[in-house]
């Protein structure tokens, strides 16, 4: 029977600079998070912070009855989400940025090409991502846009032709430039 997580005094110091971001972006956050992302192939950063102890509690989505939302309400919410997600005219994907406290949702069908999309993202998150190059990616930029494709792989935005991107992109993540190095080189 698992005990309540005893928090480690050491962690306090590091974690005073606590930021909210995706699991795996900051090791110290993992201490109390029982949420484990179930990507088919997680990136390097995500694997390293997931040691046995922390993985023992079940992924949140699989904990029965938590959070305590009544089935009736869950069903209604799911129905309404499905409706908005499968908008015939739209293709909504979530966008997160490392360090930002919450996500946005955008309709990628609204954009015609990569430059349009990048400009929109730069405006939305007030960051600079620079220009994509096949060889160097977004080298030199503060941030780099990445996305999760249908197979669960994380790719650099711009690697595939636009039309293929639109149909295979499941969600976007604006990563710190330094962390995006090495993506797509698997």
């Amino acid at each position: 029977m698992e005990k309540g997580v005893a928090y480690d005094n050491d962690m306090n110091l590091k974690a005073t600079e606590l930021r909210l971001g995706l699991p795996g972006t900051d090791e110290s956050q993992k201490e109390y998070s029982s949420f484990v992302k179930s990507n088919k192939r997680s990136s390097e950063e995500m694997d390293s912070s997931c040691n046995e102890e922390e993985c023992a509690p079940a992924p949140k989505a699989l904990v029965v009855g938590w959070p305590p939302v009544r089935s009736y309400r869950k069903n209604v919410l799911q129905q309404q989400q499905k409706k908005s997600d499968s908008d015939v005219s739209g293709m909504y994907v979530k966008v997160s940025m490392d360090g930002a406290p919450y996500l946005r949702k955008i309709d990628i069908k609204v954009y015609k090409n990569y430059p349009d999309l990048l400009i929109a993202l730069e405006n939305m998150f007030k960051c600079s991502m620079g220009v994509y190059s096949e060889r160097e990616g977004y080298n030199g930029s503060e941030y780099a846009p990445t996305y999760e494709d249908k197979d669960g792989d994380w790719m650099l935005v711009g690697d595939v032709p636009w039309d293929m991107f639109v149909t295979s992109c499941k969600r976007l993540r604006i990563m710190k430039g330094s962390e995006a190095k090495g993506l797509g080189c698997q």
Partner: protein
Amino acid sequence: MAQSFPEDVLEHVFSFLNYDKDRNAVSLVCKSWYEIERLCRRRIFIGNCYAVSSEIVIRRFPDVRAVELKGKPHFADFNLVPEGWGGYVYPWIVSLARAYPWLEEIKLKRMVVTDESLELISKSFKNYKVLVLLSCEGFTTDGLASIAANCRNLRELDLGESEVEDLSGHWLSHFPDNCTSLVSLNISCLGSEVSFCALERLVARCPNLKTLRLNRAVPLEKLPNLLCRAPQLVELGTGAYSAEIQSDIFSNLAEAFLGCKQLKGLSGFWDVVPAYLPAMYSVCSRITSLNLSYATAQNPDLVHFVSQCSNLQRLWVLDYIEDTGLEALAASCKDLHELRVFPSDPFDAEANVSLTEQGLVAVSEGCPKLQSVLYFCRQMSNAALVAIARNRPNMIRFRLCIIEPRAPDYLTLEPLDTGFGAIVENCKELRRLSMSGLLTDRVFEYIGTHAKKLEMLSIAFAGDSDSGLHHVLSGCESLRKLEIRDCPFGDKALLANATKLETMRSLWMSSCSVSFGACKLLGQKMPRLNVEVINERGLPDSRPESCPVEKLYVYRTIAGPRVDMPGFVWTMDEHVSSRLSRVTERRGD
């Protein structure tokens, strides 16, 4: 002293006593008062249908007109009680039908209700008036057709948030043309479209209709037709609140609302199109109860609408309201009693909206009458909880759900013991508390010491040891219901406080550390408790005594062990040892 009042005078005096507590007190004065009272008690509330048998009820109270029954434990709402556990109402209906031909009212919560039961109700009582089914399941629209067809003087039909097998909307057409008695109709949980013509005619011929909650299938364009025919409505639940943006639809809607001068409560709003919210502006200032918890509208439309309702007392809303919306609420709705903020995306680890502890603090500061809170959020701090406690010592119900289990104070990374401690210490009238986040045994010490009026406590993923549970059971004098999940509480505290359990309605413990052996001991020691073990994975093969049970439900009862248990529920009493060994023997071969 010899009795000086004749019986009918006493009976007349007792007729002014409506609360069960008062009537129970009166029954204890002397034998003759007990006799007089039991003959004139008309309303019965049974908080646990297994705590008493219908025979005992009928024997004591021969002339009852209204019965309220509750079945499954509260955690059934979150799928913690397996299918088939119990809570069947049919045997009760059979007994009530035989004993109380003049029964008018049945209210059920978390019970399994079959079409058979509904048909029996519809045919057994000569003056049947009220049927309320909250969070029930097991019936279809055919059962509703029986009720509609046979209850000539039906006043109230409320399906709450029940799970109904929706075969068709045709059942509504079974209300006869001469049924004009409806005061309240709530069909919001139904999926199928009912015949709009039949609905329109029904509404038109019931001049006393005060509450009408439609289901999603009723289109917005048709709402004015109903409102015009029922301008006396006090509570309205809309259907889907969406339509193409057309000026004639809008103006019809606005005009119809203008005519509803008595409207105090609004709900529904599925698929809401914000452009249509202003159609209700004419009624906003009179609205005291607003349920937008299925409305996926966002700010600024959402907060703009809510701020129009300056006399709001109760608000249920999704977290799309965000901190900014709650700050506006705190500024404009000074009469607010109750706030419930539900999560729009509960299963996402990341926040999709900007709703934090700040919103709740703002409301606790700005709304002096705030006494009832249900709040889902993703971060909390001790500082915020202390502020809330200091702002609102009049808090009565406080339910906080931090979505991440065991999440600490996000500022200091400490447990939230201090915060919740402040809540129980400052809010001396607190009757209901649900906690979440990182909590140690210390918080239970605070609760045991201060929460003397606490009646219901819900705990999840909290505590370090048995002393946590011991503090609660030994300290909370008014405790009636305790529900616990995923806490390291075990045998010691449970057995040490066995007699306490007889003073409570029930105790639920799931995924804790209580052993079969302790449950057996408890059951044997306390004959007036039903100690029920739920183990879907069957009984353990080896060393059953020390194995932890999956789920434990203990409740006081004068009806003895129940007889309708499914295979995965065992009552732990003096006979259980032989039963257990027989089962394990069988499995051995």
